[in-house]
């Protein structure tokens, strides 16, 4: 069996009896981009900090490329490269000196060539000998990626990596992550933006109030077979239609649109035809039928329990 890039088992963090992260488990395959999605304050950053041992775990295990962080700390740490929130640097030193500093801390030797290679990869050749205090946020972000990649880690952990990047930068960043996974590197990214995850990740976990409430691939989430769509009917008599459908036990998630002769129910493709036939055969006029496509956004809101309140998740 091939080793997973990362295994997280029952990760739990309690601070003064308050549970911040509650029994979170997931796995990341090799060469996969895995997303941690959730609103701000859901516990994504806490999970990431526990993975990289910045904060202690109340319970749970972290295994990186087969190395257990408790038993083989140094080996597991050298398999990881990370940016935790904003990448911070020694502003009074040049970008190059900062990288050299981290290169010195690696357990495997990081050669001058490797540093140059990484600098070229993130496109900082022209600025790398300037002091970091002259860098823009985008440049710091790229230097952050550079320091995380220096020691050839097998797992890259990026906490809110697109913070402060412009759309162009985000796009480049995405393409760049893709090219990394082709070399067999796995990536974890966290974000509170679903649209971003949709474009970036292969699979993702939704974190809400410290709990992992859903893991799926982007395709699964959007797939119409997996999720029964909601269909809107416009008919001549809503009440009669309700009675009819109730007999057939088809009033799954029945909702009436107030003031209009419309109702919506949750049924699959085949049943739409059956319902239509039933209504028409009993003399109810069907003016229109149309499926309401559930977007990923709706699905996300539904899962995090904010859709019903109409709450908007930024």
């Amino acid at each position, binding site marked *: 069996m091939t080793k997973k890039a990362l295994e997280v088992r029952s990760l739990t963090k309690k601070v003064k009896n308050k549970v911040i992260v509650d029994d979170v488990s997931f796995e990341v395959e090799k060469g996969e981009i895995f997303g941690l999605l959730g609103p701000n304050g859901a516990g994504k950053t806490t999970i990431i*900090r526990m993975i*990289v*041992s*910045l*904060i*202690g775990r109340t319970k749970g295990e972290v295994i990186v490329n087969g190395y257990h962080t408790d038993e083989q*700390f*140094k*080996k597991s*740490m*050298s398999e*990881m490269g*990370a940016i*935790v*929130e*904003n*990448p*911070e*640097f*020694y*502003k*009074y*030193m040049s970008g190059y*000196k900062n990288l050299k*500093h*981290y290169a*010195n*801390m*690696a*357990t495997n030797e990081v050669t001058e060539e490797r540093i140059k290679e990484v600098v070229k990869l993130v496109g900082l050749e022209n600025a790398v000998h300037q002091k970091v205090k002259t860098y823009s946020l985008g440049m710091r972000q790229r230097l952050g990626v550079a*320091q995380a990649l220096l020691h050839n880690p097998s797992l890259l952990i990026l906490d809110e990596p697109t913070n402060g990047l412009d759309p162009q930068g985000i796009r480049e960043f995405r393409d760049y992550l893709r090219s990394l996974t082709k070399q067999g590197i796995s990536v974890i990214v966290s974000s509170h933006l679903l649209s971003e995850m949709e474009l970036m990740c292969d699979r993702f976990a939704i974190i809400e109030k410290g709990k992992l409430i859903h893991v799926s691939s982007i395709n699964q989430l959007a797939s119409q077979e997996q999720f029964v769509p909601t269909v809107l009917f416009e008919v001549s008599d809503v009440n009669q239609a309700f009675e009819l459908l109730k007999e057939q036990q088809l009033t799954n998630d029945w909702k009436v649109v107030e003031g209009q002769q419309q109702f919506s129910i949750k049924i699959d493709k085949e049943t739409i035809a059956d319902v239509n036939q039933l209504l028409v055969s009993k003399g109810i006029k069907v003016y229109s039928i149309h499926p309401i496509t559930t977007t990923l956004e709706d699905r996300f809101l539904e899962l995090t329990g904010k859709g019903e309140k109409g709450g908007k998740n930024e």
Partner: protein
Amino acid sequence: MISLIKNELTKIFAKKASWIYIIILFLAVIAVGILQQKVFDLGPSDPNWREDVQAEINEYQKILKENPEDEWTMELIQQNQSYLDENIDPNAYSSWHFMNGTVIGMTMLITLFSVIVGSAVVSSEFADGTIKQLLIRPHRRWEILLSKYIATLIYSFSLLVALIIFGYIVGLVLFGAGDFNTKFFETTLDGYKLAVVGDQFVLKVLYYLPSLLIIVSIAFMLSTIFKSQALAVGIGIFVLFLSSTLGGIIVMIAEKFAWAKLLIFPHLDLTVYALQDHILQDVTLPMSLLILAVYYIIFMVLTFIFFQKRDIII
């Protein structure tokens, strides 16, 4: 470990302030040296000094005839007589006198600068957020903290070496080469004692080292625990400048309560032992060293345990 210490030294010396402190130290030595030479007119021995001292004794004896009970004058005569007996020119001033007096006095600045640098070594990593990038490397936390501690001590020690070398050069230029074995009278709390100037200097430097170590360690501990440089520097300087004042108060308290001898303050300045054999009636050097050692171990254990357990949440 060596590479970690090198990294920390790189960071210390990449800050302009670290160099400015050395420059201030040099300027202070030059300024005080010139002041002593020009204003107080200190310089090499006058060949006719014996006649001058004898003339002074004659003057005092005239005063004594008019005032036979004047103890102050009697003491002055006695002191001048011992200059003649021991063949010591009281006004002779050479590079070694400069070392024993002024350069030793300047160690106060070394402690001050070491406290500032030592407290920044940990707290600035927290203030800049770079601590999280530092602790996700394949090194145990105590190793990283130890490397910082050693780097701080190396910086302090370099300051001391720089002061001694520079002080000697300035002394040589301004006051001329003196004999290391020159005898002189050192003023003490009980009066004065006959000593060899070079020996006194070496003794004071040796007695200074434990104090430097302890005060830097206190600053280092405070900056690790409170993550705040301002607080660490503040308390560090407070301890530094108040230890002499508090020491005086504690002398009085110690007469009534024996436990006051166990407080750290009277023991912080061991250079007193270069002048006398005991402090606080019956406390001797080994006792002071033992008390300092106990405090030192407590401080170090606290610092390292605290740092090892801390959750990094910035």
